[in-house]
């Protein structure tokens, strides 16, 4: 991939549900490698729909989405799963950790689903947990951790397969201020290390501190967007 090639190329994407107004209407957006784009907007503006489409969890009614050179708007369920394993890491507002798995097992899951050799997966998980400073909780269950710690576990899990793209849906939305700051710092640090991030949030502070560019959606349309920061030379996925 050339330095200027976009990691995400969204063209004229529309998503409608039934007879109602479109959740997204003709959205076009490019994200270059190493960028951190914050998608802002009120509830119902189409932020989460956009994120789901990029993640391959949903399909557009019209338009095309290309991620890391791969068209993802028409993938089958199986191909979509392969795509997520290989190229996407997701962080959710409510963490979405599996309560009956330990922290380590939660983090290991994406690698195990991808069929990574056991030893390599364990080594990678250990390094991630150390990097994110939650290695002491490796054998604990998520229910015993604070919100910030849980979100760190979720970030570790999202990075496990070294994705080209990290998608974060209101990552600080369920956290107290201290924990929110912690996660904000972490995302900024990851982006500084070259991780491409799309961030959906209400939190302007988070957008300002983490994002290299912001896009605002209203009623499914991009109404405002800052200029891109240009190509980031040598951008790559985070590899702690």
């Amino acid at each position, binding site marked *: 991939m050339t330095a200027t090639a976009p990691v995400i190329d969204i063209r004229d994407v529309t998503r409608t549900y039934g007879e109602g107004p479109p959740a997204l209407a003709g959205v076009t957006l490019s994200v270059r490698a190493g960028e951190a784009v914050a998608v802002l907007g009120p509830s119902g503006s189409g932020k989460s729909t956009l994120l789901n489409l990029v993640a391959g969890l949903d399909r557009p009614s019209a338009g095309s989405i290309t991620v890391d050179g791969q068209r993802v708007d028409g993938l089958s*369920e199986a191909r979509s799963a392969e795509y*997520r394993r290989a190229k996407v890491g997701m962080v959710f507002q409510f963490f979405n950790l599996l309560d*009956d798995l330990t922290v380590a097992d939660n983090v290991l899951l994406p690698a195990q*689903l991808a*069929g990574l050799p056991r030893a390599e997966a364990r080594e990678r998980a250990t390094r991630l947990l150390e990097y994110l400073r939650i290695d002491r909780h490796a054998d604990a269950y998520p229910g015993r951790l604070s919100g910030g710690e849980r979100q760190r576990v979720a970030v570790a899990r999202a990075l496990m*397969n070294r994705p080209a793209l990290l998608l974060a849906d209101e990552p600080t939305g369920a956290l107290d201020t201290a924990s929110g700051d912690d996660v904000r710092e972490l995302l900024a640090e990851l982006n500084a290390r070259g991780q491409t991030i799309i961030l959906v949030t209400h939190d302007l502070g988070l957008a300002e501190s983490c994002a290299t560019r912001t896009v605002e959606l209203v009623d499914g349309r991009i109404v405002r967007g800052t200029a891109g920061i240009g190509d980031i030379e040598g951008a790559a996925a985070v590899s702690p």
Partner: protein
Amino acid sequence: MSALGRVVRAGVGRRRVQTAVLVLTTLMSVTASVLAAGLLVAARAPFDHAFARQHGAHLTAQFDGTKVTAAQLTATARTSGVTATAGPFRTLSVRPRTASGSDALPAGVDLPPMTVAGRADASGRVDGLSLVSGTWATRPGQIVLAYGKVPMEPGGRLTFPDAPGSPTLTVVGVARSVTGTADAWVTPAQAGALTTPNSPSAYEMLYRFRHAGTDSQLAADRAAIRATVPKGALTGSYSYLAVKRQETANAMAFVPFLAAFGVLGLLLSVLVIGIVVSGAVGAATRRIGILKSLGFTPAQVVRAYVGQALIPAGVGCVLGLGLGNLLAVPVLGEVGTAFGGPAASIPVWVNAVVPAAALVLVAAAALVPALRAGRLRTVAAITVGRTPGVGRGRLVRRLTGRLPVPRAVSLGLANPCARPARSATTAAAVAFGAAAVTFGVGLALTLGAVQSGRMLNSAGQVVVEAGGGQGPAGAQVVHAGGESDIPKADPAKVAAVLRAQRGTGRFYGTAQAEAVASGITGTTTVVAYQGESSWGAPQLVSGRWLYGPGQAVVTTRFLKAAGLRVGDTVTLTERGRRTSVRIVGEAFFTEGEGMALLTPTSTLAALGLDAKPGQYHVQTKPGTALAPYLTSLNTALGPVGAVARANTSNASEVIATMDALVGTLTLMLVVVAGLGVLNTVVLDTRDRVHDLGVLKALGMAPRQTVTMVLTSVAGIGLLAGVAAVPAGVALHRLVTPLMGDAVGMTLPASDIAVYHAPQLALLALGGLLIAATGAFLPAGWAARSDTATALRSE
């Protein structure tokens, strides 16, 4: 419609899978139970009614007139336990010939020997005969025929060539004796006139006893009678229980396995209904909270959930009643008409009690989870909105995570531990299904073995007909009147041809005749064997096969009917000649109602009957092509006067009906078990929909999702299957001898020991198959579920 009614109707309509499961479950259990209970009652009722109406004889006893007098026999009425008697009636075995023609029989036809009793009137304190047509014989020259014995109407005439003066009697009536005490009746004077100087002097006495409900009570009654007459005077007897068993045998044989399926079905119903209603309550916690917040009382909530189970169960009951009654028609078809009543049908009270009991069970099964719903706290129910996670099975999940298997498999393996109660009920449902399959397969194998072993003439690939008009055992054989029997081929010549024929392995011959056997009413078909026949012998239950002259092999039914056991002696009588044979073996065959007596041909010779075989059973050498063998053999047999054909034994319709029922009920049980699994997996999938969404968001592919869901029930299915196989085998071992008992037969051990290691291994996998099949649909749903929606279902 009331608010409660609307809630119930909405619940039934909304949960279509669960509703279908409840309908099918009750349909299956009610069908099997109605059939079992209905047959048990209905099959016996016509006989019981006729027996009560006609004051049937508990015991019909034959006496040797040379050893006991009529006065001594009359005195047996005072024996302890005897409540009523009829007789003594003089009896004799005679061979009539038709003297007039009818639609069924031309004139001049020699009929098989029949037992004629000299009896003054049809009524009496015991065995009151019901006249089907005509009148009773009131003077010499008249005869009354037993219904169904000789196809002749009043006005017809019979000649008795062997009697003094070859008298011709006119048929004046047709009468029915519920226990078949004779083939025909004449006046006592006529009986004396039919007696030849060579005829054995014999009497018949009919008894009713105070205690005659069981075989052992009747054996004691018989012993008491025997003790009051001179030694050896009582030559034979048969009980009404033996007759009853014989008349109701086919229908009663269905009862044990139908009862087993009925019980399995009811237990499975209770289990599945418990699962379904419990799942409905678990999945609708929020709904229950809303209902309560709207003013529903706990009792109304309980009634709503019980009602949601009772409505589909009621539909299942109605359908099950219809199906059960429909399936009973072919089974009960012949019962009833045999005793002069209408065709038997399942009694109304059975049709009322069985579904009522089923609905009570359904209500009881639904009540437990419904009470749980009623007790739910409104605030908690609305707040929670969905079944909270219980956090069980973490250790197992951790351990399975270390297994060297794909992660989807290890996640699935640990799932059952998260909800052990639900997993246990799933395992139980699968176990019932697997046990039903094991039981059903065993029954089919047993019925197959019975089918192949029940016919005496099924031995060998080739049958040579040597003439003489020999029919199958039990068939009424008639010969052209006045003429000698069609000459049979010379046995020595037939044997020589068979021995010379290339491809012949071994063979034996059989001859067939009718004779009167002591203790057996009417005539008995005697099948006589010539040559080494052990390879074609019927399956033996006890004793051994014929190995010398003067021996006999009979069935359990024959032994019970005559009150004999292996080692006892039977006296055969034909046209005044007598010979005794010792019973050396007890065999299993159903040909000729299982009442034929098997003996060497020397026995027929001793009775003055034609002992030349009319049939030869030939076993060809391995690798012999049948068609060329038959062509070549028939060419050689032509000059001898015999003809060879392929041996094609016919299949029993009763066994075919049983096979069809076993197959249907097994399939229904398996389907219900599978639906139980399906319902549980659907509940589990709903409970875990959010986790599934997370896993899919992390890259779990549809195939991996299906694998995880299937694995979550595979372990349970395998374990349940392994545990269920011994239960199914035990049930089979319990039920099959009861089926034999029901028809008065003892099944050979080889027909019961039908399971072998490879089959058992396959059957053990049946649980896995049921579980996987039941989980397949919900696994597909889980794989196709919308990830984005699932992730929002916090």
